[in-house]
């Protein structure tokens, strides 16, 4: 089996599993030597934050300057849409504006965000080098199949080959951020089915009949009673 055909068979399995909503059964360790992880030397962001007494009613846009380059934004967008693709009427991560928020995040002067900045920029850089290493091209111009071949090596921490440990840690940070930003967007909140933040007069209505029916079914299964 050649390198590519073995990849291709995995890719097909992945598509099937993805379509059925099941996590993939296995991920092969890459056979080629991956690009080395090279932490970027970054100048610290020294902008000031929004302060300890910002206007809460009309939040001003974040006061710090956005720092991602066009190339970084594009690559982050490709990865973000692999993480959260469009689904029916629901937009993808980039469609919901996640990259602007990600740029705001990595450009923020706070310690956690600066930590993420170091991981994310180094990770984006790694993706480019790995795309070149495997396919001799930039990540964004790879075929979807080729992109997923790289992503599959770093998207499943529990079975990541040791050589991919750092890129996988990067991908995990990116995933948590992109998912958090997507699901806190109006489109993402609607997809989750969040129905709150509306005033109700009188007593709190409590769980619906449907919600109680589901609970009762679960209680029965568990042998519990209210």
């Amino acid at each position: 089996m050649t390198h590519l055909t073995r990849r291709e068979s995995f890719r097909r399995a992945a598509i099937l599993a993805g379509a059925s909503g099941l996590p993939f059964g296995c991920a092969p360790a890459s056979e080629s030597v991956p690009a080395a992880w090279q932490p970027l030397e970054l100048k610290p962001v020294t902008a000031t934050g929004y302060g300890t007494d910002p206007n809460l009613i009309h939040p001003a846009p974040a006061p710090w300057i956005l720092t991602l380059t066009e190339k970084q934004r594009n690559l982050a967008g490709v990865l973000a849409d692999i993480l959260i693709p469009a689904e029916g009427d629901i937009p993808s991560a980039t469609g919901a504006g996640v990259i602007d928020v990600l740029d705001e995040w990595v450009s923020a002067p706070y310690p956690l965000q600066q930590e993420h900045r170091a991981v994310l920029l180094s990770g984006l850089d790694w993706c480019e080098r790995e795309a070149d290493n495997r396919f001799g091209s930039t990540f964004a111009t790879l075929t979807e199949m080729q992109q997923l071949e790289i992503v599959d090596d770093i998207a499943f921490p529990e079975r990541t080959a040791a050589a991919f440990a750092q890129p996988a840690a990067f991908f995990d940070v990116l995933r948590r951020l992109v998912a958090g930003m997507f699901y806190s967007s109006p489109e993402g909140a609607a997809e989750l089915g969040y129905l709150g933040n509306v005033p109700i007069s009188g007593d709190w209505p409590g769980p619906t009949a449907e919600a109680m029916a589901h609970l009762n079914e679960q209680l029965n299964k568990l042998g519990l009673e209210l």
Partner: protein
Amino acid sequence: MIVVGSGAGGGMAAYVLTRAGHKVLMLEAGRDYDPVAETPMFNTNAEAPLRGTRTPDKHFGFYDATVDGGWDVPGEPYTMADGTDFLWWRARMLGGRTNHWGRLSLRFSPHDFKAATRDGLGADWPFEYDTLAPWYDKTETIVGVCGDNPGLDDIPDAAPGVLHKPPQPRVPELLLAAAAKKLGIPTAYMHRAILTRPLDNRQPCFWATPCGRGCSIGAAFQTTTSLLPLALETGNLKIVTDAMVHTVAVDDTGRATGVTFVNRKTRKPETLSARVVVLAASACETARILLNSRTDALPDGVANSSGQVGRNLMDSTGASFTGLVPALENRPRYNEDGHTGNHIFIPWWGHAAQAKGELNFPRGYHFELGGAFPAPGMGAGSSAAGYGLALKERVRSRYGAYVGLSLRGEMVASDDCYMEIDGEVRDQWGIPVPKFHWKWSEHELNQVAHGRDTARQIIETMGGQMHNPDQLPEEAIKKGGEIIHEVGTTRMGTDPGTSVTNEWGQTWDVPNLYVMDGGVFASNPHKNCTLTIMTLAMRNADHLAQAMGRGNV
């Protein structure tokens, strides 16, 4: 008279004193604050920088009401002894921390007042529960507390008609309650300082918007929408904000003559005289003021002949246990905001077991139960795994499927936990800062281990899995101060040799100097402290008002 601080204790003191006809000048270190104009009630995380996430500028998230504070206050550091990891939450605003507290409001129970007599640890209170019971009724009536009287030994009954109707439990809370029931552990309605019927000018809760941002309609109690406007209505209250008090002056006869503060706007000191001084700047700030008031005549500070000022510092123990519950995955959606806090909780159920010697720790704890469809924020990403449609499916199915049990327990005062004044470090106003000393004892660690095992049993009984089930108690327990229930630094008692104030919060040494914040606590039962801070302030301000009326102060 002067009241220092406008939070829970100061707000109640000013309310009672002004309504009894006394003129009160309130000095507040923070800026003026108007919750009606400043509370971002319905704003969403998507409208905030960084999706509203916590930052060092806003430690509890962008929309949290805290002004110029949190775990750090700009220009106002504190220090710690080697090996101490203590957190001190402050807010520099009118109303102090009442603008954003959790509003959990449980009475102490009869067990709580003479615990030292029972187990030999810490100190007794100078009275029994029955003494405070009518004051709890009066305080709850003015504050507005929802909850009920379940007849459990850890939850004393309020007088009929006092409590507001609580909201019914949410689905995850019902499942938690069913699991607890199977294990013989009771659950009860949480008591929260949330109106569910109108009171004064305040409206009942409309079942939306996080209370930590403050409540512009006044449903969630904060002094800035209740006690302070009511006190101002009397015409007897004057509030001066941006006034950072640093010392109380005492004359040769041992009477307080007034206070000195730094005007934060001019950065200049100003001195005011008063017949009576009431300190309610919060337990650690009040102790700091007393210790910083030392003179040649009083080298240990004011009201400190007992040497107890700053000692006996207590917080609640805290630990958080969470788990994913498959039975809650993919459950039908509905609006689960409710009053945005926990609707039910697990009160302490172990008094009998403890009396029989079956537990390896003294005192009790409770669990605040968590589980709901939350307003989506950055946390929504934490359940993501893999990528693509499978990732989305997983996030959707796990939304609302996590539960949490937050332990809040009683710690026992110890010689290892106290504050003093740092001899070297001063804040930006030139005021010497507190230095904290802290070490959890076996009592607290054993209690947290018991809580961890209990939480695990409950989550497993629901068919779920607890995260980190083997975590050591040393790792699970929150830091000292982190639960933000610091009390005890000017404790009350019956003996001037071992306590700072008498049962009325009147300092033994200086008869016209009172403490009306959590500093006066003799012990720190697991029931969150603020309702009792206000109840004591009401009782003691009433006593002070009457004594003033008789010319006795």
